[in-house]
Structures are given as C-alpha cells and as structure tokens.
C-alpha cells in the first residue's frame, strides 16, 4: 500500500515537488520560530543564571528598564544611597551583594562614549566568566583600572601601561585586562568603587546592588524585605525574564501569524494536489474498487499519500531550517531586544518532533476530503469514464 502511494506521488513530479516545497517552506518557518522561542528563552535563562544573580536593587522608577540597563551596561540617571548596600548585606539570606556605579564618559574627540563602572571585590563571584590576561592584578591602588578586552584594544593599552583621562583629569595605571567574554563587559572600564564615586561626583551613591542568595528558593521572602529600603526597589530575575519574553512575545505573535498563514496555504496546496489526483485517477481508483479494494482501503491509500507528501515536506522543511537557520538568526537579532550572546536557534529534537506532528496533522486534514471523495467512488462510475 505504501509503495503504491509512493508510486502515485512520483508520477506528477513537478506538482509533487511544488507541493513539497510549499510544505517545506512553511514547516521551515515554523521550525525556526519554535526553535527561536526555545533558544531565546534558554539563552536568556543561561545568561541570567550564569551571573548567579537572583535579584537586583535598583532606584525607584521603571524597575525593569533599570535592571535591563544595568545588565546590558548602560547608565541610569538616578542612583541609590550607598547604605542600601549595607542593608542588603545585613540581610542574613544574602550570600553576595555587590555594588555597581555606572557612568558614561563622553569622548567627543574620539566620537564615542565610554562606560565606566565602579566595583569592589564582591562583584567577582557574580562574574564567573571573567578571565584576566597574564600579569593582571586586582586594583592595587585607587588609580588602577581594569579594561575590558575591547576597551584595551581601542585604547592600545596593556597591563602596566599608564593611561590619562583628560575628561576627568586623572591618571590611571592599567592593572588588568579582561579576556574577551562576548558580554557588555568587553568594552567597559572598571575602577574601584570609591574612585568612580569621586570621578563622577557621586559621593556615597551607587547605581545598583546585584544580589545572590544563599538559597534561591527564598527569593520572595527576601525581596519583600528589601522592598523596604528607601528609594530602592527590588527586581527579581524571574520578573526580568518575564519582561524580556513579553517583549519578544509580540514579535513572536507576528511571526506565528505568518507561519500559520504559510501552513494554511501549504495545506490548501496539499488539498489541491490530492483533489486533482483523485479526479485524474478516477478510473484507476475505480479499478482498485473493482478488484476488491474496500472503501476504507481506498480512503487509506489517499490519506497515506497526503501524509507522505506532508511528512516528506516537513523533513525538507526541517533540513531547510537547519541549513538557513544562521541567516534567519542574523535577521532576528536586528529586531529582538536583549538578544543573548549565544545561539538563539535551538533546533532540538522536541522542536523537530513538533514540526513533524504539525506536518502529519496538516496532511491528514488536507487529505481527508479528497480521500473521502475517492472512497465514495462506485467501481462502475470510475470504469465508465472514458
């Protein structure tokens, strides 16, 4: 029966090929979409988890925007009093609380803006991906700076070089250079917190406190308590993720709509192919009935053909998605906020299975009516057509 169905598909090669292509493209889009959703979520989760931060204390205002800015290396207009750090540190369930003071330094002569970040030792456990190049040391004195890999490259500085910042009138010694990490850290200038506060005239102010808990499950409890800190508010990473995903959600809805339209069109083309196959082969189907095929067997034959068509198409589509996923990802990155650094497309087995399921369902749906039509043929009606 299967080989009979297969042999029927090979007889109108062009039509079969076109139908296959239609199914393949729509399933390919669907596969990319699903994979992208999964990959984005996973990538985002990984990135946030990698920081080991469960929550962040930011100034009052739009909390998500603030947290996102801190995470992505942008400055805030407002800041927190330094004592909020102490409050966080006194909270018994907090393992690490690291202060951050971020400030931009416009460099009109070079036509760019540098980002300076004031930190102290406590930030190191929160940035496990930091690797210093050989010879680097942690800040030996107040006028030391650690450069991100890119910052070091643009400044043409190595460990041990001195470094004058005309805008602030200060002279620094480069005590360390970070290896490239692919994060926003690469282009930043890190200085001791006190130096930053002085440089940017923010005595006793900080931009945010990044917090890691001893036990991540106590997140709600701790966040309600820290909510009391005056002038500050708590953003948990779960909330952050939700916000990011919501942002992406609207993009996804749009692409989903496109994928659904594409699937409908390919379903229609399968429908058309099958229906015209039934019309064309009326006589042959009559012969089948005449030599003893039951209605259900004829129905099965046509359904198998339709499913074969869409399954083959889905296979092609998945292959297509695998082949072109890179380019799709490049396009998607242009539109998606806060795209994680690692690959967005996650063509997992689960995604591939889902695509096949959709393919089979479309095939079944589109093949149902033609197959039913075929099964209704009386042997004699079919034979009579000349």
């Amino acid at each position, binding site marked *: *029966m299967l*080989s*009979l169905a297969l*042999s*029927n598909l*090979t*007889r109108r090669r062009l039509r079969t090929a076109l139908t296959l292509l239609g199914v393949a493209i729509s399933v390919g889009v669907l596969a990319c979409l699903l994979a992208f959703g999964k990959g984005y979520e996973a990538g985002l989760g990984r990135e946030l988890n990698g920081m080991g931060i469960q929550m962040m204390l930011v100034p009052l205002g739009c909390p998500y925007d603030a947290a996102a800015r801190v995470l992505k290396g942008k400055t805030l207009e407002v800041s927190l009093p330094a004592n909020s750090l102490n409050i966080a540190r006194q909270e018994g369930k907090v393992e690490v609380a690291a202060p951050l003071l971020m400030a931009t330094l416009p460099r009109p002569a070079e036509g760019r803006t540098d980002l300076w970040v004031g930190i102290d030792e406590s930030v190191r456990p929160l940035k496990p991906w930091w690797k210093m190049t050989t010879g680097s040391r942690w800040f030996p004195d107040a006028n030391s700076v650690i450069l991100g890999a890119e910052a070091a490259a643009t400044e043409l500085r190595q460990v041990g070089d001195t470094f004058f910042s005309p805008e602030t009138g200060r002279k620094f010694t480069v005590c360390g250079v970070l290896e490239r990490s692919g994060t926003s850290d690469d282009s930043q200038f890190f200085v001791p917190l006190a130096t930053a506060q002085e440089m940017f005239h923010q005595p006793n102010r900080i931009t945010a406190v990044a917090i890691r808990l001893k036990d991540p499950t106590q997140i709600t409890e701790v966040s309600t308590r820290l909510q009391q800190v005056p002038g500050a508010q708590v953003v948990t990473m779960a909330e952050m993720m939700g916000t990011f995903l919501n942002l992406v959600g609207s993009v996804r809805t749009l692409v989903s709509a496109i994928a659904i339209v594409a699937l409908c069109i390919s379903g229609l083309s399968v429908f058309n192919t099958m229906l015209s196959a039934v019309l064309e082969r009326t*006589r*042959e189907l009559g*012969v*089948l*009935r*005449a*030599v*003893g*095929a*039951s*209605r259900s*067997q004829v129905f099965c034959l046509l359904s198998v053909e339709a499913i074969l068509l869409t399954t083959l198409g889905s296979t092609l589509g998945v292959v297509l998605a695998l082949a072109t996923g890179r380019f799709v990802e490049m396009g998607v990155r242009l539109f998606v906020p806060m795209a994680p650094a690692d690959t967005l497309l996650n063509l997992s087995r689960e995604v591939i299975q889902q695509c096949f399921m959709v393919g089979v369902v479309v095939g079944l749906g589109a093949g149902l009516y033609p197959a039913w039509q075929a099964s209704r043929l*009386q*042997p*004699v009606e079919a*034979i009579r057509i*000349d």
Partner: protein
Amino acid sequence: MVVAMYAKQNEGVHERVESKVLVSAKGLTKTYRRGTEEVRALDGVSFDLQQGEFTAIVGQSGAGKTTLLHLLGCMDTPTSGEIIIGGHSTKGLSDRALTQLRREQVGFVFQHFGLLPTLTVMENLLLPTLFSKREAKARANELLEQVGLTQRRNHHPNQLSGGEMQRVAIARALINRPQILLADEPTGNLDSVNGEAILQLFHQLHREGLTIVVVTHNPILADATQRQLVLRDGQLVP
C-alpha cells in the same frame, strides 16, 4: 459466511456438475437518469448461467451489454430485480459484502485493461491480493506462465503491447481464483492475431472449468462460445 458458501461451490467446479446454476438473473432492470430523462439500459432481463458455461453477450451498441456485465460483477446494483450467486441473493448487500464478492468470486477484465501505469506487470497482478492480504506470489508466477508473460514481469504497462496488457488483465482477474470471469470486449482493442491468442486463453480456462461471460462485438469470439445472450434495447432476444 459468504466465503464458506463459495468454498463449497469451488468443489463443484472440479466435479463439473453441468446442471448447477452459478448465477441467476431475475428481472434485472437498470435505469440511468440523464438530466430529467430516464434511460432504461436494462429492462427485465432474466437468465441462468450454469457452472462452467462459456457465454457471450452480444447486441448492438447501447443495447445494455456493459451494464449487464457490471451488474453480474457486482460493480453496480440493479434498479430492480436481483442477482443470485450460488443460491444467495446479492440484493441489499452492504458495500463491504459486495466488495468481498468482487474480490473473491468475480474476475473482471476491463475493455481498457485497467492496469495501473505506475506498477509493473507483477505488481498489477498482485493488486487484488493487496486488499485481501493474501500471499499469492506462487499463484502470480503460475498465471504469468500460463499467459506467457514470465519474462515481462518487471515491465510497466506502457512497455507492453495491447495483447500483452489484455493477458495481464486476465491473469489479474484470475489471481484470487474467482468463480466467474467477466470480460468486457476483451478483443475490442486487439488485432486478429492477438484476439486469437486471447480466445485460445479463454478456451483453455473454460476447459479448466471456469465460468466465463464475455461481452463482444467480435463474431469469431461469439461463435466460439457455448451460448449467446442477445440483447436489444435492454431486453433479451429469445
């Protein structure tokens, strides 16, 4: 149930009980509706076919020959009247039961061969067994041998001559060891040489005890049969 009853009939073939009625048509009438007009293709046709009989249905074009053959082969149902096969009426049988009858009791040879172009000779031969889930390779080889097409088993229909296609069609009709072979103008599309070969094949099958009914315009074929049923305007001419 239907099968059991025919298995018994099968033994009859070998005994060649001349008087045994295999098929009985009683007052067969078939009307077609063409728009508002009613066409009476068959009008009260009654006859008996004996087991092992070789019969020709002849008559002018439009007389209702094909219609009658289809009714005999359970390809269609009469408007009124009934067909009794092996003592059992086919009247009111379900589509499923009729399908089973077609598959197991009737071998039908179409005027246009009815071979599937995408399948090879062998696959075409085995087509009916695809639906009965019966292993029949040996039977297929035997039949190919009988119709002299063993070398052609892996060819496709478009690589065959008309006579060869007709022989494949006959072999296919016989694969499930039917009680009766029905052929609609089996020599209609063939030249006289190929027509003669088909005629010889029918003779051989007849000698083996098969009941055969052919619809034909070919006087040679009609004269070679034991009995002729002449149709005119849907009625049997006595």
